């Protein structure tokens, strides 16, 4: 009874002082947060002082003196830790982009298949989703890397795909593209894209004002094919291939040289990430298409749109609005999941920086914070872009 009275008393007391009622909980929270952060900082300072470490990011410019197996930019042991960080970051972005592309393609196909009228096709897609969604991603990565790709043949018995690429236990060897005057080609591509954008704007305006339709899609397709082709004929752009060749390194050891070797770690990681994330994207796509009302299709048909136009102008724009937000989340998840690379020694940001570099420098606080901040930034960038896109295609209500 006494407790209840007391409680009532406090409530009454606060009820009479609305300002205090508003600020008391906030002040307490703020105090608690400051206390915890301060306590941690104090301890960290004491601990680092005991071990003789000074907090700072100067180590980033020191020589790293470790090698990285796979890198998109020039790198060896004589470069700095900062450069090693960049190599790791680029490798993370590489595997994320590959994963996102394949997961999207596969996810859309599977999502559409699940709605197929064909019983076998929809069951097959459902089985795929149920199997791959319910197995931990790490396990799938391990399976592809340690079980499936390890079963590939040695370089001397490589699986020959189309006579130019070779699949071996040491990776997948593909031809290297040797461009001459590459910048002219890029320039022509940019020019083509600018032309296409202006043509589509012009076509839209023309249709709005006069109702006349210009085959903008066909013209765009023509431009994007013809302009780069012209640079090959007149601009001096040339494409040569450097094919991988089998060489004997010692009496028993063979390997491929030349071309580009895609390391098995990258293949396993990209494969597992795409197969796993595709199941989630498939569910998003399915939900999106099912979310468009039947009446929409019937209305489109009744005003005389062809099935193709119905899909392109009525169903897809509405389905995309439902599909895009959850799919963005999946892209974010994929990017974060790519950090599992560390478990199979694909040199991504976590392995290179939070693994090797941290072992060598012992700067746990700086390195873990930089790594976390990097992922935070990547996440925020992707979500800002997607929010912008989402807003652009959102229903503009009048």
């Amino acid at each position, binding site marked *: 009874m006494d407790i209840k009275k007391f409680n009532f008393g406090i*409530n009454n007391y606060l009820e009479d002082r609305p300002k205090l009622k*508003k600020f008391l*909980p*906030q*002040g307490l*929270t*703020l105090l608690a*947060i400051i206390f915890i952060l301060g306590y*941690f900082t104090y*301890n*960290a300072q*004491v*601990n*680092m002082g*005991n071990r003789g470490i000074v907090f700072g990011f100067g180590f980033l410019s020191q020589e790293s003196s470790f090698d990285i197996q796979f890198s998109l930019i020039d790198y060896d042991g004589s470069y700095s830790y900062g450069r090693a960080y960049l190599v790791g970051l680029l490798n993370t972005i590489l595997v994320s982009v590959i994963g996102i592309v394949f997961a999207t393609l596969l996810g859309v196909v599977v999502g559409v298949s699940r709605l*197929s*009228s*064909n*019983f*076998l*096709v929809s069951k*097959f897609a459902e089985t795929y989703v*149920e*199997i791959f*969604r*319910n*197995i*931990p*991603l*790490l*396990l*799938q990565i*391990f*399976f592809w890397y*340690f*079980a*499936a790709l*390890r*079963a590939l043949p040695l370089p001397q018995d490589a699986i020959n795909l189309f006579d130019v690429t070779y699949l071996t236990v040491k990776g997948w060897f593909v031809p290297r593209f040797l461009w001459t005057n590459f910048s002219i080609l890029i320039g022509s591509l940019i020019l083509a894209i600018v032309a296409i954008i202006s043509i589509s704007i012009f076509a839209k305006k023309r249709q709005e004002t006069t109702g006349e339709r210009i085959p903008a899609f066909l013209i765009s397709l023509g431009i994007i094919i013809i302009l780069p082709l012209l640079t090959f004929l007149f601009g001096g752009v040339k494409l040569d291939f450097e094919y991988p060749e089998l060489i004997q390194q010692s009496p028993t050891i063979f390997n491929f040289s030349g071309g580009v070797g895609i390391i098995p770690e990258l293949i396993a990681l990209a494969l597992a990430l795409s197969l796993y994330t595709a199941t989630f994207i498939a569910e998003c796509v399915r939900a999106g298409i099912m979310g468009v009302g039947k009446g929409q299709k019937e209305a489109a048909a009744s005003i005389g749109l062809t099935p193709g136009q119905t899909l392109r102008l009525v169903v897809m724009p509405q389905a995309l609005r439902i599909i895009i937000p959850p799919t963005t989340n999946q892209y974010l998840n994929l990017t*974060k*999941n790519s*950090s*599992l690379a*560390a*478990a199979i020694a694909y040199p991504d940001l*976590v392995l290179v920086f*939070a693994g090797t570099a*941290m072992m060598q420098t012992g700067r*746990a*606080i700086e390195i*873990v914070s930089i*790594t*976390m901040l990097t*992922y*935070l930034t990547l*996440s*925020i960038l992707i979500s800002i872009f997607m929010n912008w896109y989402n807003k652009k295609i959102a229903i503009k209500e009048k």
Partner: protein
Amino acid sequence: MIDKLTFLRPSKERLNLFIFFGALFFGIGIYDLISNSFFSENITSFLPEILSFFTPLIFGFVGLHLIRIEYSGNKILDSLNKNINSNWFNSILTLLLIFLLIIGIPVILNWAFFDANFFGTSKEDCTNSGACWVFINVWFERLIYGLYPNDQIWRVNVAFIILILTVGVAFFVNQKIKKYIIIFLLFVFPFILISLLSGGSFGLEKIATNEWGGLSLTFIISIFAIIFCFPVGMFLALGRRSSFPVIRYSSIGFIEFWRGVPLITVLFMASVMFPMFLPDGTFLDKLIRVIIAITLFEAAYMAEVIRGGLQALPRGQYDAGKSLGMSYWKLHLLVILPQALKLIIPGIANTFLALVKDTPLILVVGLLELVGMIDMAKTNPKWLGFAAEGYVFAGLVFWIICYAMSRYSISLEKKYKTDR
């Protein structure tokens, strides 16, 4: 000329004839495929190579075309046409899938069952060409209990038998007793589990957490993280919707931070960075640190799921509660949360599923649950080369757990569905 060919068009009049020829062509296609892939005998080798490669598809296609007769009156044929053979594109997809199944299923079955070895004690007992389940058989205890001492394994068994029994009983008793069982599971059982496993009291030998492992560790981490992440997530969700700016922004910051970083860096933080933040000399067990890390990580996701539920409730519910003079906590505990949680059962289940699927990651900080133990077993010099068996086994175990969880959540969702 074309007119004369119309007799080739499938029609209802000569139904049996078309079914006969359709089935014949379809059968030839299947026979061609089987003889080709299992007996390496190409019955169409007289044709050019590229044509011969596609003959099963061509024969099957013609066969399916011949039986595509609408409203034939034959029920089986009609449902077949409707479901797998509605147009030429669907028939090709159907054929490709049937071929894939014909080629794939025997290979998988042979590997997993008919050519596999099940019993034995060493690698040498695996004489057949298929899977070597002896590997799992021999390592089974390690995969379940980790490095837990053999003579103490009964403690793990007792703990989990208690769990299974209480959960089993909960299914058969009425609502009133069920409530007490749930309270027991949430507030008493965790202590029983911990004191049984770690020992040190009641005359039990003390066993350090680095000897725990295997599937039991997966369960321990999942159970604790699930129990803790739910209330934390709830407070964060309420905080994010609070009208106090300090509380709102600190909740947003907290949630977005954990959602923006990968779990693996969180685990790194828990294992190497967190000890630096504690006073010198204090030591927090690694398992506890990892459980805290996973809890906070999943709590952020849980908070967003719960927030979705809170936002989905109509405003009238809040207004009605307030007009009855309910305080903030009374309003939320008695009116808002019971309704909101009902709405988000699928989301909660997904978060729990993600949590269970994330547990194998703890191997990066040196704790070996099921996947970690398989990793250890397959690098044992006596057992090299059985990675596939190990991962297939672990995959099956996780699949059963996750599939059961998702089915259970669907049944819960149906049970608590109320019409609005």
